[in-house]
């Protein structure tokens, strides 16, 4: 959670310094929920994270270096400069690289779970995350319905972070609570306070355990507020001040730290040590990725097919730069 926060902050500062192409998308305010997902999954499970899941990705096993490599376009990263920022994963390790089309990862996780069923693999769970905006898409409805019909061990986590980019929840859906949708598909629903790490670990953990035990798809809806813009290019000036001041606007990291202190599980100095250690780890990861080569367009294999013999030569050639 702390490492995710600091890694995100580093990416944001690199973006402001003009050292990252495209955009930076961080998870400030959603780390408790995200980390609970990554923490509840095991090796062999499937995880398809969304935009704000840096903390969950790390908890599921992603290295900080891989994250930095993708943002910085290192050819040694899992996407090798072909895709960037949050669009990264290692599919063979059950860790999927998202596409930008919201809801699209749900049926893909379903398909992976179906394949496991074909192979006779049991006891695995597939989890994917979404914002409340994504629940308005056809893919959400088709995907959740599909998982329900097939009784797949899918855990669908919805971070109701109050804004889909700038669109408030009131313009996104008209039902009383998104968790009511679970009943509509015949799946179990869970709602929780996404600013509270303990609640996140408990509820997400329960949903994952239910799915693992064969109780079919689980829908988890967390209430929280996104404590950042949609991306680092967005100042989030549209966020309602009252929401910021409400309990929903609490910083989940601070809430978690306060809880640890109240329980006398740590000293305040320990928190400082943790933060320094995480910062050092992040600096090392970024420095490593920065030293690595970026893609060379003239050495790139411009080939979209795995079946090389079926690649068309037509239009694929990139002229070499002329000698001057």
């Amino acid at each position, binding site marked *: 959670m702390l490492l995710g926060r600091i890694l995100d902050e580093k990416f944001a500062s690199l973006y402001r310094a003009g050292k990252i192409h495209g955009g930076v998308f961080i998870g400030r305010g959603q780390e408790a929920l995200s980390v609970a997902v990554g923490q509840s999954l095991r090796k062999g499970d499937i995880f398809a994270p969304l935009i704000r899941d840096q903390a969950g990705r790390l908890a599921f096993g992603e290295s900080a270096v891989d994250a930095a490599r993708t943002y910085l376009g290192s050819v040694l990263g899992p996407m090798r400069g072909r895709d960037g920022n949050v669009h990264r994963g290692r599919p063979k390790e059950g860790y999927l690289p998202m596409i930008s089309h919201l809801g699209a990862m749900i*049926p893909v996780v379903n398909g992976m779970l179906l394949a496991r069923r074909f192979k006779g693999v049991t006891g695995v769970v597939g989890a994917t995350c979404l914002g409340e905006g994504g629940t308005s898409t056809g893919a959400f409805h088709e995907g959740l319905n599909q998982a329900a019909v097939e009784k797949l061990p899918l855990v669908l986590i919805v971070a109701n972070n109050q804004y889909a980019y700038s669109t408030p929840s009131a313009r996104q859906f008209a039902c009383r609570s998104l968790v009511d949708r679970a009943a509509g598909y015949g799946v179990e629903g869970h709602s929780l306070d996404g600013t509270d790490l303990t609640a996140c670990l408990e509820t997400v953990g329960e949903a994952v355990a239910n799915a693992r035990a064969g109780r079919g798809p689980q829908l988890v809806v967390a209430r929280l507020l996104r404590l950042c813009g949609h991306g680092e290019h967005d100042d989030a000036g549209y966020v309602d001040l009252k929401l910021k001041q409400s309990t929903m606007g609490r910083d989940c990291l601070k809430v978690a730290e306060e809880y640890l202190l109240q329980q006398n599980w740590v000293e305040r100095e320990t928190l400082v040590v943790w933060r320094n250690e995480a910062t050092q780890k992040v600096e090392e990861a970024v420095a490593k990725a920065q030293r690595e080569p970026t893609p060379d367009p003239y050495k790139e294999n411009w080939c979209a097919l795995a079946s090389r013999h*079926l690649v068309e030569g037509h239009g694929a050639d990139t002229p070499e730069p002329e000698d001057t």
Partner: protein
Amino acid sequence: MSITYLEAIRLAQQRALADDPRVFIYGQDVGAFGGAFKATKNLAQEFPGRVIDAPISEDAIVGAAIGAAIEGMRPIIEMQFADFSTVGFNQIINHAAAFHWRTQVPCPITIRLPSGGTSGSGPFHSQSMEAIYAHYPGLIVMTPATVEDAYSMLLEAVAIDDPVIFCEHKYLYYHLKADQLPTEAMPTGKARIARSGRDMTIVAYSAMVHEALAVADELAAEGTEIEVVDLRSVKPLDTDTVMASVARTGRLLCVGEAFPWGGVTAEVIARVASEGFDLLDAPPQRLNAKDTPVPYHPNLWTVHRPTARSIAVAARKLLRQ
């Protein structure tokens, strides 16, 4: 024994299921019912648990196929009608097509699109989508015109490590018959000279090959020899065979059943014009369906898409140039 184009598609799926435990079939009504066109008839009974009915959800059907393919399975999915694949368009072009490029992990899916027009089917059950999918890098687009190709290319599609859009033509389902299935087949990516000639080349694919062959017969009686090239797959597109044919004949007419704007015929003509302009004795021509949605009434439909009659008119006009 006489095998229809539809039966060849069913037999190819049966063979794929029998040969490879990674293969499964997923789509609407493909299970016990045997498919809207009966292309999966009896397969659910023969291969229990491997031919699965899906809820109406083209987006989720393609998405699930992608997930299964990532896990090493070889899904065949049926879109029931090519027209409905638009609902799964996002997963096809943004996810399946881009997956190997992004991750280096293969995404072997066969997406069966019952394509093209049949009388009375109207705007939503008659479309030809091959040009749309051929536009996207990472997809292979097959358009078999014969019973033999329907069988061998579908088996090849399942074996290929990439997503394949398999455009099988509904009009050909019962109209074509063959005595036996091929044991050896011409590979995807090679066009076939369906008929040799010296006076003009007609490039066609899918059902239009047969309309073009009828025109070649008709004009042969008048002493004109038309060469008919069957593209077989529109991506990859066998430019070399097309170019060699045009080098022999000097004239090119390209025929497709899809809408005209930016289609396969436009691509063929662009390639010949840019790479083989000096081979041409007359401007290359194309003939497509009209630029309107596909009409319902047979009177309208038979004129909307190219037929032997309209191809013959276009061919005669080109021969005079």
